[in-house]
């Protein structure tokens, strides 16, 4: 069996296969349930308000996906070290790149599970509004590279800092900064600094795309620049994760 698939299967089995591992998925569903139930209190929304609700749910799912990625990424290398299983893993006849890709494969499976759990919520809040199909499509298209990018980034930090706690703190802080547009509306990001931050921040690119597509019904061609930012983030983060892992010496 391909070593990447083997590692991905083993790692994802720890996250999804066990009862304890499934706890986070249940908690994710509970968070989305609370959010959805809060929305039930106001059924007299205009079509655009409804689109805003879908946008909020999409942003929340993406942030939870980012959280999942930084936790798994932080544990991916330093966790192995702290549990004493890193040296045996590195002594196996598997390329470092394959180990990294295997661990990221597990993250991809975990994000895919979170995405699948989120779909009924998107349907529940958005099926009588507008652009639900676009919401489902763009959440996958833009959310996936963003989340995996954070996974790679956290994995790289995990290698370089050598401690789960330190890597988790650093990557969570980065995620919090990147996800700040969830809390700060567009009007608060109109300063020169805010505009520069929006232009380079992949999380902003994803949120602005969700807003553009779901609320403003704008076409894919207008999202190409933002897609480029998110893909660039994935590429740079993947390079960082891989280069960090390859720098390890036994």
């Amino acid at each position, binding site marked *: 069996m391909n070593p990447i698939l083997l590692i991905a299967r083993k790692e994802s089995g720890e996250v999804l296969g066990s009862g304890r591992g499934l706890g986070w998925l249940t908690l994710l569903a509970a968070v*989305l349930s609370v959010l959805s139930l809060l929305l*039930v209190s106001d059924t007299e929304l205009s079509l655009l308000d409804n689109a805003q609700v879908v946008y909020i749910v999409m942003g929340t799912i993406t942030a939870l996906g980012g959280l999942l990625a930084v936790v798994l990424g932080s544990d991916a290398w330093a966790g192995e070290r702290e549990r004493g299983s890193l040296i045996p893993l590195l002594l196996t006849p598997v390329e470092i790149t394959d180990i990294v890709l295997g661990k990221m494969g597990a993250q991809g499976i975990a994000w895919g599970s979170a995405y699948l759990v989120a779909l009924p919520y998107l349907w529940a809040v958005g099926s009588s509004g507008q652009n639900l199909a676009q919401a489902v499509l763009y959440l996958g298209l833009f959310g996936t590279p963003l989340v995996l990018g954070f996974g790679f980034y956290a994995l790289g930090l995990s290698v370089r800092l050598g401690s789960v706690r330190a890597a988790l703190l650093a990557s969570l802080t980065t995620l919090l900064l990147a996800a700040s547009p969830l809390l700060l509306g567009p009007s608060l990001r109109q300063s020169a600094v805010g505009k520069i931050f929006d232009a380079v921040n992949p999380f902003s690119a994803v949120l602005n795309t969700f807003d553009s597509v779901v609320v403003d019904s704008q076409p894919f061609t207008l999202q190409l620049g933002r897609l480029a930012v998110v893909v660039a983030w994935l590429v740079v983060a993947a390079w960082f994760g891989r280069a960090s892992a390859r720098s390890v010496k036994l």
Partner: protein
Amino acid sequence: MKRALFLLAFAAFLVTSGAVDAASGLSIALVPDKSNPTAPEMGNWLKFNSIIKNTGDTPLAGLVVWISLVQVDSGHEQPVDLEDWSAHKALVIPNLNPGQAIGADWAMRLIQAGDYRVVLSATERHAATLYVSPFADFHVRRKPTVESGRILPVAVGMPLLLAGFAAWRMRRGR
């Protein structure tokens, strides 16, 4: 006597203004399209047909016609920003000769429930007054955009389903 003279002068002004309007007159007809739903609700599209005709005897240049929407629900009277309702908000007619008529359709997506009136306004480069169409009134029925009947089963069912699956896996793992 002074009052009578003032009234006379005012009447003369009105007559003169009317004459100017008649000389460079414009008529705007606005009617709902026949294909419009009879009881429209949020999310539906409505179309309005208009005919802009130069009824005067001088050409009109640089004519701008635009659509306005006003909500007239009691207690909610307000002009509505058309940004989200319609992408076609104005029409520019470079030149309209006497007797010439131009037809234009105005489509809008119904975003919010309520009672509305739509009106076309027009002005041209040298006009002293605003030309307006008759009102077209319509009512938009509310459509629930967040349905508790749909959210509740998902919000309660999903965590229970996953928790049950996790418990089953834990029991099998022992």
